[in-house]
């Protein structure tokens, strides 16, 4: 090919890391193509005549002496309409289209644009006066991307200037110019898409306080350990404790407008699961298919390890782009441990000095950089959007004291620890109520009190206190058996048991139970606390626990999560009434 810029030659190949020599004018972090098969790579170190290049594809057959071609720009993503519903690999190559070229396996050196160049989008310009001054991030117009999502066409953040002209409403491909801007660098065409380097956070005017919770429909999360829109959370857990299941449940039912799901070094079948299941599921808020708000990045465990390293940044860049359009975006990163391991492997190949457990010393910095890209932000054009990052962590041996979990804990404000014991009893989501915490509680309490009644915070505190008491009582029970406890204390065990079975445990595959609205959660908690308050009172008045437990209504309370529909909250009020009546009756007979 003519006009290509050769920046050097391969000198040594050692797995995904190659050393190049004869380097003339390579840029740091420049995107390069290596060898005659044109493998995608990135310059990660420059040293005199030598460079270290991280290659995003399998390097089998690469030979010393082969040329390296520069692209003149850093590794970037394409941002524009057509992202939603697509599945990309770690460096934003469309996997569906790769399949058309190379069948069931992924061939190397495939070059495909991330956004379809042929497809036309219907562009509706805003009424902008020519000559008006546009900042980077300003809105030029809109495109209906999916039926539920209006895609705002933004001026790229690195462009500011006077608008010369804007095209009229009509159909355009992503590479046809829709506007011309006069900037300091001269006249520039603007398109429906622009490129953005993945390792650089997109700018925003300011950070706002995260005060709105991200409602996930998962009761243990929303009620006990809520996460705010624009927040960060880590889900650590050993294998089989349900990290991926929890991530999937949140991706399906949370009230973010856009979901970016990053399958980073995980199983291929898990991505297939998302691809087959999401299109069939209906978003309860919009009534549209879940796939119409989902973007997928799949870099499965057997795909090249360096692209796994990049996949996290690719995903979060796409999320920031939708944030700048004023959307609330949730990023699921499954799993950040695999990403950290990719860092470790690359660092090892570069023969860097290791810190803890072979991880490079810059691991905490990288983790912090990633999580800090979350936030509730005000954009240039006054748009307000958020990126919430939900990162799974896979600690070796389920031991939370390992470096990735520990460093992640420093940089997230919410922690959902998955518990092996709960998972073994098939109590899902296996989020431990003892180890988990949320720092967002105070800032989102006003929202909950407005939506769920003034005693939401006190109710929540009450049940948390009971759970704490239960732990101490269980220790006693383990030594002397439950019979040694007085009824008043055994009742605490009983209520906690009820709370776990009827509230905390949630069946992701049940049509009703898989998702609970805010209102249902509030009411369910109220039912259980009514049982606690009235029951404790009755026991104080001399009614035995055995009699109390015989009440028929308890059976219905345990099953309310399956039987009461989200729209049928009157049924829960009736349950409370029945419960009160049963206890009244008992008191009138025995007291």
């Amino acid at each position: 090919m003519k006009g290509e810029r050769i920046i050097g030659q391969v000198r040594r190949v050692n797995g995904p890391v190659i050393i190049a020599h004869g380097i003339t004018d390579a840029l740091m972090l420049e995107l390069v193509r290596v060898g005659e098969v044109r493998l995608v790579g990135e310059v990660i170190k420059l040293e005199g005549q030598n460079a270290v290049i991280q290659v995003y594809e399998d390097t089998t057959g690469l030979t010393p002496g082969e040329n390296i071609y520069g692209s003149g720009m850093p590794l970037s993503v394409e941002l524009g309409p057509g992202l939603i519903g697509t599945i990309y690999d770690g460096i934003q190559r469309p996997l569906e289209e790769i399949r058309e070229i190379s069948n069931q396996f992924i061939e190397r050196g495939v070059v495909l644009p991330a956004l379809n160049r042929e497809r036309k989008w219907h562009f509706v310009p805003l009424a902008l006066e020519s000559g008006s001054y546009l900042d980077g991030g300003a809105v030029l117009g809109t495109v209906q991307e999916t039926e539920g999502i209006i895609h705002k066409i933004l001026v790229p953040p690195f462009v500011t200037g006077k608008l010369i002209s804007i095209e009229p409403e009509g159909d355009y491909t992503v590479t046809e110019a829709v506007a011309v801007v006069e900037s300091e660098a001269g006249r520039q065409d603007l398109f429906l898409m622009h490129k953005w380097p993945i390792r650089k956070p997109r700018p925003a005017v300011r950070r706002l306080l995260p005060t709105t919770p991200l409602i996930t429909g998962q009761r243990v999360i929303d009620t006990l350990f809520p996460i705010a829109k624009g927040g960060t959370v880590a889900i650590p857990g050993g294998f089989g404790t349900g990290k991926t299941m929890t991530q999937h449940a949140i991706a399906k039912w949370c009230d973010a407008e856009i979901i970016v799901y990053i399958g980073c070094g995980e199983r291929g079948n898990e991505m297939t699961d998302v691809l087959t299941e999401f299109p069939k599921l209906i978003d309860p808020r919009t009534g549209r298919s879940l796939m119409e708000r989902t973007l997928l990045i799949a870099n499965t465990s057997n795909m090249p390890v360096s692209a796994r390293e990049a996949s996290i940044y690719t995903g979060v860049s796409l999320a920031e782009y939708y944030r700048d359009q004023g959307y609330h975006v949730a990023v699921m990163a499954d799993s950040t441990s695999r990403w950290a391991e990719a860092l470790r492997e690359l660092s090892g190949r570069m023969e860097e000095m290791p810190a803890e457990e072979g991880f490079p010393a810059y691991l905490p910095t990288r983790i912090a950089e990633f999580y800090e890209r979350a936030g509730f932000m005000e954009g240039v054009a006054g748009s307000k959007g958020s990126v919430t990052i939900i990162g799974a962590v896979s600690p070796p041996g389920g031991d939370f004291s390992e470096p990735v979990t520990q460093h992640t804990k420093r940089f997230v404000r919410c922690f959902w620890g998955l518990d092996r014991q709960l998972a073994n009893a098939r109590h899902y989501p296996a989020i431990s109520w003892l180890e988990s915490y949320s720092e967002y509680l105070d800032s989102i309490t006003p929202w909950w009190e407005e939506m769920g009644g003034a005693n939401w915070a006190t109710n929540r505190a009450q049940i948390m206190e009971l759970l704490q008491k239960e732990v101490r009582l269980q220790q006693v029970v383990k030594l002397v058996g439950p019979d040694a406890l007085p009824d008043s204390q055994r009742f605490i065990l009983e209520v906690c048991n009820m709370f776990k079975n009827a509230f905390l445990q949630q069946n992701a595959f049940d049509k009703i139970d898989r998702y609970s609205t805010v209102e249902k959660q509030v009411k369910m908690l109220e039912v259980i606390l009514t049982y606690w308050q009235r029951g404790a009172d009755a026991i104080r008045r001399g009614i035995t626990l055995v009699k109390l437990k015989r009440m028929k209504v308890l059976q219905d309370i345990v099953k309310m999560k399956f039987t009461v529909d989200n729209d049928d909250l009157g049924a829960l009020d009736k349950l409370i009434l029945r419960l009160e009546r049963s206890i009244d009756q008992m008191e009138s007979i025995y007291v």
Partner: protein
Amino acid sequence: MSDAKKINNAQKMLLSGREYVGIHRIDGPLIFIRDTHPIGYRELVECVGPDGDTRMGMVLDTSHDIVVAQIFEGTSGLTMPDTKVRFRGKPLTLGVSKKMLGRVFNGMGQPIDGGPAPVGELELDINGKPINPTSREYPRDFIQTGISVIDGMNTLIRGQKLPIFSGNGLPHNELASQIARQAKIRGTSSEFAVVFVAMGVKHDVAQFFIHAFEETGVLENVALFLSLADDPSIERLITPRTALTLAEHLAFSHDMHVLVIMTDIANYCESLREISTIRGEIPSRKGYPGYLYSDLAELYERSGMLKGFKGTITQLPILTMPNDDISHPIPDLTGYITEGQIVFEREMYGRNIYPPIAGLPSLSRLMKDGIGDGMTREDHPHLASQLFAAYSYVKDVRNLASVIGEEELTPLDHQYLEFGEYFERKFVSQKQNEERTIEQTLDLGWEAVKKLPPEELHRITEEELQKYYGQ
């Protein structure tokens, strides 16, 4: 093809005939050769020692000055001045064919049963290529193994990778051969094949499997790849890749349902550690290389179903957990990649329960989509969930009983103990030649659940209780 590529290929062809005499350094299974023409990464190496035998190897590190290659047959007997080395200009390939069924091969795919080498239908790179996630089909066909604790609680699905986490001396070989013998998809009769991969296992173990396959008359549907305990340890690194290359060919070119039994993954990982240490790489946990996860994923992910292909690959890797420790890096990383695990428990084995499958840590991730109405039976999901919950409580009660004595337990806890006993003795426990249908398995499950009062059965619906629990 561009001109540059053509020249490149022609050059490689010419150079692949060039022979280098003398190597610079030998270290364990690695050889170091200086001043070669440019050699490709992972290129195939042929190495002829003074004894005249040709050994195969692969390039691990290549640069202008020095090339490092690992020799699969080991380096014993090689000398520095007299060893001849040829670089073949292509990666290690295997000629695959359906005729390989019924034959025995070494780790490199060369026949060791005395017969002639089968004529390959295709030459395939043994490293394979990653499957595009969009071409995968989500596996959901239930495989009836006839073993209650697997079918009922950890259902095996066609296209799944489900390892057995065992320990030394536990009957994992018996279980694997029982699964190979009994596994069937109900209501279908399709061509099946077994690819058996032995990595560093004892001769006796290999004999046990051959014997078991012979006995059931399936040997002509089995291809065996043996790299036994006294073969060079480095050969184990290539053995599963060779075998999986054949498995892929059988599944995706011949529409066969392939069951791959790999034993023992722990030995494979040991070899990987050996190479890594010799190369002076930075170790992560317990001396294993940092890329152990990615390396294992390269094996395990070569399974599943593909859109538009009838054949499937189901993997049943066996690994013995060093010191029965499930948090050891080998079982730990395996568990993160595979779709569940069958965990053996020494205590159950001691109590003479076969198969000694621990109820709680065992898991099948694909189970949820392969069971229930139209696939097994409508009560299956809730019953399985209930059995897990109840058995988990049994463990708590037993702990309590060991502290305060059984007499002090509440009547309900006594019922749980009874349930636990029935569950282990009747439901889990079965004979090595006993094959139960899924209906028998589920009915047994209900018998166990009947030991508990209905108000304890939170996970079962009212209708199911009426239909199966009685009264």
